[in-house]
C-alpha cells in the first residue's frame, strides 16, 4: 500500500503534463475567470440621437457618461445611421430622445426615450438597457416636483454580494470545476494508463486486492486536490477579496467529500475505458461540460427547460456549488445544506460500490 502510494506520487511528479494540469491549471483558471470573464459592463460606447438638445436631455446624457459604464459614441441624426453604427460594431447601444423633450416634459406630456441595443450579445444588451433605464428613471424622479403624485420607489439591496462582483459567483464554480477535473480526470487517466501499458495485468496477478489498487491510486490525488482547493481559496481571497463568511473547516470538509465523489467517478470512468484517450474524452464530455453548463455555475438551473433541470439533479457539481456558495457567501452552517451534503454522500457511495464491482479482477 505504502509503496503503491509512493509510486503514484513518483508518476505524478515525473510527468510534466500532469504537474501542469495539477498545479498550473487552478491558478490559471482562477485568474482567467477572475479577470477576463466578467458579467459587468464597463466603458461601452453609446451613441445619442438628440434632436432637441435641451437642459433635460443634456443632463441625462451627462449622467450616463458620468456613471462609468458608458463612453460617448458620437451623435447620430437619423435612424438609418443607427443601423449603420451597429453594423460597424462600435456602438452597443443608442439612446434616442424625442423632439422638444424638455418643453413637452414641462407641459406634462410624456416625452419618450428610446433605448436601442445591439442584442447580438443578449446578456450585454440586457445589462446595458437596465443600467441606462435606471439612470434615466432616477433622474426623472428628481424632476417630478409634485409631491402628491404617488410614486412607488423600490429600494433594492443586494445581499451576500452587495457590489455584484462576478468573481463572487465564479469562485465557487471554479473550485467545483477544478476539483472535478483534477480528481476525476487524473485518476481515470492514470488507471487507464496502467491498463494501456499492461502493468495493470501484473498488479492484478499480484496479491494486491482490487480495493488496495484503487485506494493506492486515489490517495495521492485526494491530497493534491485538497491542496488545490486550498490554493484556489487563498488566491481568490488575496487577489479578488472573496470572503469565506462561514466556517472554513466545514468548507474544507465538504470539499473532501466532493473530492472523494469526483475520484470515485474517475475510477468508474476508468473501469469502462481501456486507454488514456478514451478516459480523457469520457471525462471531458461526461464531466467537464455538464459541470460547466448544467451545474448552475454559469446558467441558472431555474431557467432551464424541465427535462434539463431534472437531468441536472444528477450532476454532483450542482449540489456542491450550492454548498460552497452557502458557506462562502451566506456564511450558513450545515443545517442549511444537510440535504445537499447527504445527496453527495449517497452519490459517492453509489460510485464507489459500482466501480469496485466493475473493477475487473478478471481481465476480460
Amino acid at each position, binding site marked *: 500500500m505504502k*509503496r*503503491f502510494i509512493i*509510486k503514484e506520487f*513518483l*508518476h505524478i511528479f515525473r510527468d510534466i503534463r500532469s504537474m501542469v494540469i495539477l498545479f498550473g491549471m487552478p491558478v490559471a483558471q482562477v485568474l482567467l475567470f477572475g479577470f477576463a470573464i466578467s458579467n459587468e459592463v464597463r466603458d461601452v460606447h453609446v451613441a445619442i440621437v438628440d434632436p432637441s438638445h435641451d437642459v433635460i436631455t443634456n443632463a441625462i446624457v451627462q449622467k450616463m457618461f458620468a456613471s462609468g459604464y458608458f463612453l460617448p459614441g458620437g451623435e447620430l441624426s437619423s435612424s438609418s445611421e443607427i443601423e449603420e453604427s451597429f453594423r460597424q460594431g462600435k456602438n452597443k447601444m443608442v439612446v434616442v430622445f424625442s423632439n422638444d423633450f424638455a418643453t413637452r416634459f414641462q407641459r406634462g406630456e410624456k416625452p419618450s426615450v428610446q433605448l436601442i441595443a445591439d442584442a447580438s450579445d443578449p446578456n450585454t444588451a440586457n445589462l446595458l438597457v437596465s443600467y441606462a433605464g435606471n439612470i434615466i428613471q432616477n433622474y426623472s424622479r428628481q424632476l417630478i416636483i409634485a409631491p402628491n403624485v404617488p410614486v412607488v420607489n423600490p429600494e433594492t439591496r443586494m445581499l451576500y454580494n452587495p457590489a455584484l462582483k462576478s468573481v463572487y459567483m465564479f469562485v465557487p464554480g471554479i473550485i467545483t470545476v477544478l476539483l472535478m477535473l483534477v480528481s476525476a480526470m487524473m485518476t481515470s487517466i492514470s488507471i487507464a494508463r496502467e491498463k494501456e501499458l*499492461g502493468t495493470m495485468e501484473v*498488479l492484478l496477478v499480484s*496479491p494486491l486486492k482490487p480495493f488496495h489498487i484503487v485506494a493506492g491510486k486515489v490517495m495521492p490525488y485526494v491530497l493534491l486536490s485538497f491542496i488545490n482547493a486550498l490554493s484556489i481559496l487563498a488566491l481568490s481571497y488575496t487577489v479578488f477579496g472573496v470572503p469565506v463568511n462561514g466556517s472554513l473547516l466545514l468548507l474544507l470538509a465538504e470539499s473532501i467529500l466532493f473530492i472523494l465523489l469526483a475520484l470515485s467517478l474517475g475510477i468508474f470512468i476508468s473501469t469502462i475505458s481501456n486507454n488514456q484517450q478514451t478516459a480523457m474524452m469520457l471525462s471531458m464530455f461526461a464531466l467537464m461540460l455538464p459541470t460547466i453548463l448544467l451545474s448552475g455555475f454559469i446558467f441558472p438551473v431555474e431557467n432551464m427547460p424541465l427535462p434539463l433541470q431534472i437531468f441536472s439533479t444528477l450532476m454532483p457539481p450542482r449540489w456542491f456549488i450550492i454548498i460552497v456558495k452557502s458557506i462562502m457567501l451566506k456564511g450558513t452552517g450545515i443545517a442549511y445544506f444537510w440535504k445537499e451534503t447527504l445527496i453527495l454522500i449517497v452519490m459517492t457511495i453509489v460510485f464507489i460500490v459500482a466501480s469496485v464491482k466493475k473493477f475487473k479482477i*478478471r*481481465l476480460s
Partner: protein
Amino acid sequence: MTTTELADRPVIMAENLVKRFGSFVANDHLNFNVEKGEIFGFLGANGAGKTTAIRILCGLSKPTSGKIMVAGYDVYTQTEKIKKHIGYMSQRFSLYEDLTIAENFRFYGGIYEMRPQNIKQVTAEMLSKLEISNLANTIIASLPLGIRQKLAFSVAIMHRPEIVFLDEPTGGVDPITRRQFWEMIYEAAASGITVFVTTHYMDEAEYCDRVSIMVDGRIEALDTPANLRKTYNAAGMNEVFLMLARKAKNTD
C-alpha cells in the same frame, strides 16, 4: 513456503480443465501436470486458447469445470494464496517506464510484501548478475529493450515464486538477447522455480523440458521436444507445430 512436503507432487495439476464463453469452448478438457523446476512450453497459434488457460492458472479467471491445483492451492477457492506464490511477466512490457530500476524493484517487492532489506539485497544481486549495478537509478524509459526485458523477468522472480508464468516474454527482442534471456530462465529453473512459458519462436520450444501444443482449445500433443519430433517424424519443432496447427479452425 518450502515445498519439501509437496516435492513429489506436481506444481501445476490440471484435470479436465474446461472454460466456456457462452457456446464457445476456449479450453476443452485440458489435462496436464507440470513438475517442480521444469520448463514447460505452452504453444499454440493465436486464438488456440493459451491466454485463457494462463489466466485461469494465475487466478484471474475461474474455470467452468475441472480440477486445477496451482502450487498446491485450488484455483476456485484459494486464488489469493496462489497469487502470493506465482510470478507473472506479460507479453506487454510490465515495468513502469517513468520510474528508475531501483524504484521498480522497490515497488514490486513491496506489493509482494518483501522486507525493505530483503528487497535491497535481491535488487543488488540481480543487477550485479546483469552487470548493470551502475544503472540502478536510471529511468527505465532510457534503457534498451533487451535490458528492460531481462529486468522484467528479474522483477517477476524477485520474490522467489514457485512458478513463474511468462506470456511471450521474448516478443520483439533480438536473437542475442533472447539467448541471454533463456540462460536466465535456465538459471531460475535450476534454482527450483518452475517456468511456464508461451512462445511463438520454435527454437525456444526446443529449449523447454516439455512442450504442449494447443489447437482449437485442446492439447493435441504433450511431450519432450525430442519425443515430439520422433512421433511426428519431423526435423524440428517448427515442422511439428505446423503439422498440428494447420488442423485448426479457430484462428485470428
